[in-house]
C-alpha cells in the first residue's frame, strides 16, 4: 500500500465515527426546506454583487434608507449563498447548508470523543448539542461560524506546547472567516483564551501560539469593513436587539433551552464533583456569559462544553455492564456507506423553500400597486427577493433602520401617538401587515380599501382610499 493510501486509511479509521455522524446529519439537514426570512435579503445582496462584480455598499432595497451606507461584513458568505443558489437553486442552498452543518458536526463529534469518551456518552451529547443548534440551521452566513468554531476548537485543544504545524492553519482560517461572517470575533476570543492559557501554563513554550494568534488577528483586518463588523458584533453582545426572537435570552423551559440548561448543569455539576482545568475555566466562562445573552449563542457553549464533559461524565457514571461496540472492521465501511448515502441524499434536496409564513398570495396584488409600501418587519427579506420592484419599508437587516425608521415603524404599526403624521411623512400608499396589527384595525375603520387578504388571516393588503 502506498504511503498516501495508508495515511488516508488511517485517517478514515480514526475519523469513522465523526464521519458517520456528519453524514447522518447531512442527510437530515439537506431535506429541510429553506424558511428563514433573512435568507432572501442575503441572497439578493449576493446576487447583486455577482451581477455587478462589486461590493454592495449602500442600500438599494428599501424606500426608507435608500442610498445610505450598508454593512458589507458578510460579503463572502453572501456570495457563497448566492453562488449556491445560482448553481442549484433552492436545492443548492439546502446542500450548502447541510454541508456546513455536517462540517460542524464532524468536528463536534471529534470534540465529544476526546479523552476516549465512549459512544454511549458522546452520542447523546452530540445529539443534544445539535438539537440546540437546530434553531440556527437557517440559510445565512452565520452557518460558517457554526462550522468553523468546532473546527477551531478541534485544532487548538490537542495542540502541544511550543511550535506546531497546526499553528500555520490559524491565520488563513481567520482570513477566510473574517470575510464570511462576523462570528470570527468569537473565534478570536476563543483563540485569545487559548493563547493566554498557553502563556500562563507553558511560559515561553506558549509563545508560538501567541504569535500565531497575533497573526490571525492581523489578517482579520483584511476585509472590506473590519471596524464596522467588529462594532456590529459588539453591539449584538452588549445590547442585543431583543425584538428579534433569536436575540432573546435563553428560556430553559423551551426544548432547546432545556437542552442548553442540561449542558450548563452537567458542566457545573460534574465540575463540582470532579473539578476541572484552568483552560476550561478560561474558555467556558465567557462562552457561558455569551450564551446567556441571547439564545442564538447557546450553541457555542454547548460545542465547547462537549470537549470537556465526556471524560468527567465517564468518571461519574458507572459504565454499563455490556455496551455493544461496532466491531472495528465494520466502522470504516459503515461510515463510508453513510457518506455515500449523504451524497445521494443531496439529490432529494427541496427545490422550493417553505413559504407558508410569508404573504406569497399578496405578491400579485402588490405588483400592480405603486407608492410607498409599509410591510411587516419579518416579511421584508421575502419582498426584497420576490418583489424587487417594490422597495420595502423595513426588513431583517435592521441595523440600517436603527437611526429612526425602526422606531417610526413601531409607532405606525402599534398605533402610537403621532402615527397619522408618520403615515403622511412617509407617504405610505399601501400596507402589507398581519391583520391583528392596531394600524390595520384603525385604517380599516378609516375606510382604507382591502387590496387582498389571506383566507387564513395571516396577512392583508390595504390601500389608501
Amino acid at each position: 500500500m502506498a504511503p498516501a493510501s495508508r495515511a488516508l486509511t488511517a485517517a478514515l479509521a480514526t475519523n469513522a465515527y465523526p464521519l458517520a455522524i456528519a453524514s447522518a446529519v447531512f442527510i437530515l439537514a439537506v431535506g429541510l426546506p429553506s424558511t428563514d426570512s433573512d435568507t432572501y435579503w442575503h441572497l439578493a445582496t449576493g446576487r447583486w454583487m455577482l451581477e455587478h462584480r462589486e461590493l454592495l455598499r449602500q442600500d438599494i432595497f428599501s424606500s426608507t434608507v435608500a442610498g445610505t451606507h450598508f454593512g458589507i461584513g458578510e460579503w463572502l458568505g453572501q456570495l457563497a449563498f448566492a453562488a449556491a443558489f445560482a448553481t442549484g437553486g433552492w436545492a443548492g442552498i439546502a446542500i450548502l447548508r447541510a454541508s456546513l452543518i455536517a462540517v460542524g458536526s464532524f468536528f463536534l463529534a471529534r470534540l465529544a470523543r476526546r479523552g476516549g469518551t465512549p459512544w454511549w456518552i458522546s452520542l447523546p451529547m452530540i445529539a443534544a448539542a445539535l438539537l440546540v443548534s437546530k434553531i440556527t440551521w437557517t440559510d445565512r452566513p452565520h452557518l460558517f461560524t457554526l462550522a468553523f468554531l468546532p473546527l477551531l476548537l478541534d485544532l487548538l485543544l490537542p495542540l502541544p506546547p511550543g511550535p506546531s504545524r497546526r499553528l500555520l492553519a490559524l491565520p488563513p482560517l481567520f482570513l477566510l472567516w473574517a470575510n464570511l461572517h462576523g462570528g470570527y470575533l468569537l473565534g478570536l476570543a476563543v483563540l485569545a483564551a487559548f493563547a493566554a492559557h498557553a502563556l500562563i501554563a507553558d511560559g515561553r513554550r506558549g509563545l508560538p501560539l501567541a504569535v500565531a494568534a497575533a497573526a490571525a488577528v492581523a489578517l482579520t483586518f483584511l476585509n472590506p469593513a473590519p471596524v464596522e463588523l467588529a462594532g456590529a458584533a459588539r453591539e449584538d453582545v452588549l445590547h442585543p436587539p431583543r425584538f428579534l426572537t433569536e436575540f432573546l435570552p435563553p428560556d430553559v423551559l423551551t426544548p432547546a433551552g432545556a437542552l442548553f440548561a442540561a449542558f450548563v448543569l452537567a458542566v457545573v455539576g460534574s465540575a463540582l464533583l470532579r473539578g476541572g482545568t484552568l483552560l476550561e475555566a478560561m474558555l467556558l466562562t465567557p462562552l457561558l456569559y455569551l450564551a446567556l445573552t441571547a439564545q442564538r449563542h447557546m450553541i457555542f457553549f454547548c460545542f465547547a462544553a462537549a470537549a470537556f464533559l465526556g471524560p468527567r461524565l465517564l468518571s461519574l457514571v458507572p459504565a454499563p455492564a455490556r455496551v455493544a461496540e461496532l466491531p472495528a472492521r465494520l466502522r470504516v465501511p459503515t461510515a463510508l456507506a453513510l457518506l455515500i448515502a449523504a451524497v445521494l441524499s443531496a439529490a432529494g434536496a427541496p427545490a422550493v423553500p417553505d413559504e407558508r409564513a410569508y404573504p406569497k398570495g399578496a405578491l400579485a396584488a402588490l405588483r400592480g400597486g405603486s407608492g410607498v409600501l409599509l410591510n411587516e418587519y419579518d416579511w421584508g427579506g421575502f419582498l426584497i427577493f420576490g418583489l424587487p420592484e417594490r422597495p420595502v419599508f423595513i426588513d431583517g437587516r435592521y441595523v440600517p433602520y436603527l437611526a429612526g425608521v425602526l422606531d417610526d415603524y413601531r409607532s405606525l404599526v402599534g398605533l402610537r401617538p403621532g402615527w397619522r403624521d408618520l403615515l403622511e411623512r412617509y407617504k405610505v400608499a399601501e400596507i402589507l401587515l398581519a391583520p391583528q396589527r392596531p394600524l390595520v384595525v384603525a385604517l380599516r375603520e378609516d375606510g382604507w380599501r382591502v387590496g387582498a387578504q389571506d383566507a387564513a388571516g395571516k396577512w392583508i393588503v390595504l390601500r389608501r382610499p
Partner: protein
Amino acid sequence: MSRRMSWSAPLLVGATFGALSTLATVGDSDLYWHLAQGRQTLAEGLARLDRFSWTVNGAPVLTDQWLGQVAWYGAYAAWGWHGIVLLRAVLVMAIVALVVAAALSVHARPFVAVLAALPAIALTRFSWTERPELMGLACFAALLLIVRLAEERPRVLLGAPFLLLLWANLHGSFALGLVVVAIVCGELALRRGDARALALGVVFASVVATLVTPSGPAIWTSAGGHFLAPPRVIQEEGVPDVTEPYGLVFAFVIAAVLVTSLLSRPAPLREAALLIPLFFVSLTAARHTPFFAVASAPYLAAHAPDAIAAIARRLRVPLPSLGLPTAVPGMRIDLATGILGIVAVIAAAALARAEPDLRSYPVAALESLPKGTGLLNEYDWGGFLIWYAPATPVFVDGRLFPYLPGVLDDYRAIVGLRPEWQSVIARRDVRALLLRPAAPVAVRARELGWRVVSSSTGYVLLARP
C-alpha cells in the same frame, strides 16, 4: 449553635443593609392589593372571594399569601408607611444576616464569608419589595442555614417542618423549600443509614406542614404554576437577562461558581445535589435568580479561596495566608450586636421618607374616576386603584390568576386594539379607559370621539361618548 461561629458579623452586616434598604422608596405596584387583602382578612376573615374587581367579582381568589398580607397590613396599621419601611428593613436584615451566617458556618473567617455572600446580597436587592415574596426569601435563607448546619448535626433538620408551616402561609415559594428539604433528606438517607428515620420523618412532616394552610392541597396548584410555567407576560417572570443590572450580578454568581468548581477541590455530592436544582430554578425566571445566589454563598465561602489560590499559583502571585480567626466573640457580644442592629434599623425606618412614590401612577385621575363598574384600567395600576379608589372596582390587577384566561385576553384585545376590540368593549360594557397615553386603544378612542376626562403625560382617562 456551636461557638465556633458568632452571629455578630452576620447581624452587623444585616443591620447595615437593613438600614440601607430604608433609603429605597415604597412603590411596588402589588403592595397595594396585598395591603387591601390583608385589611380585609383582618376585618372580615379570610378573603376567599374577589371584592376588588368588576370583571371577576365574587370569583375565588388565592389565599396562599394570607399571613404575609396580614403582616404587611399589620405593619401599616401600626405605624403607617413607616411600618412598611420597617418591616421591609427587618426582612432585609434577616435575609442578609442568614446568608452571611450560612457562609460563615462553612468558613470561620468573617471577611471571607461576607465577601462570598456579597453577590447574593446584591442580587436579593432586586427583591427588596414590599410583598410577601420578601418573606419567602427570608424563609429560603433560613432553610439554607438549617441545611448547612445539618451537615454536622442532622437533627437541626427538625426545624425545617416548622419553618415550612410558617412559609406555606406566607408565600407560594414554600414549594421550593419543600424540594430543598426532600433533596437534603434524600442525600442524608443515602449517606448515613443511622439518619434514615430522621430524614424520612422530616420530609413527611414537611409535606404535612405545607398542607396546614387555608387552601389545603390546592395551595400546590399556584405554587407549582409559578415554578413550572411562569407567566412571562409579567416582567419579573421573564427569562433572566444578563445584560440588565440584576442579570449581570446573576451572571457573576454563575461565573464565580463555575470557575470555583473547576479550580478548587471537589465538593461532596450533597453540594451538587443542592446547587444544581436551584441553579435550574434560577434560570427559569428573573425573580428566581436570588435562590441560586443565596444557596451558593456558603459554597463560595468554602471553595473560592482554593480557586483564587490556584489561579494565583499559576500566575505566580503571592497571596496572604487565610488562617482561622483566633477568637470568636461571645454570646453577649452577639446579643448586643443584635440589639444595636435592630435599634439602628428602627431608627433608619423612622427617619426614612416613607410616603410611597406615586409618580408612576395616575394620582391626578383619582378625583375624576367614575364610581361603580365599567372602567378599564392599565394592568400595572390595578393594585393602586384597589387601595386609593375603592369605590371604582378594577378591570384587572396584579393578582393575575383570577383573570386568566378570559379577562386577561379581553384586556389585551381592547388595549392592543385587536380587530375585535369594539365588540369586546360592548360585551364587557366598558365605559371608561384609564391607560397610558401611548396605548393603541387610548390613541384610537380619542380619534373616535371618546371624551378626555383627565390626562397628563403619564395617563389619560377617557369616557365613552
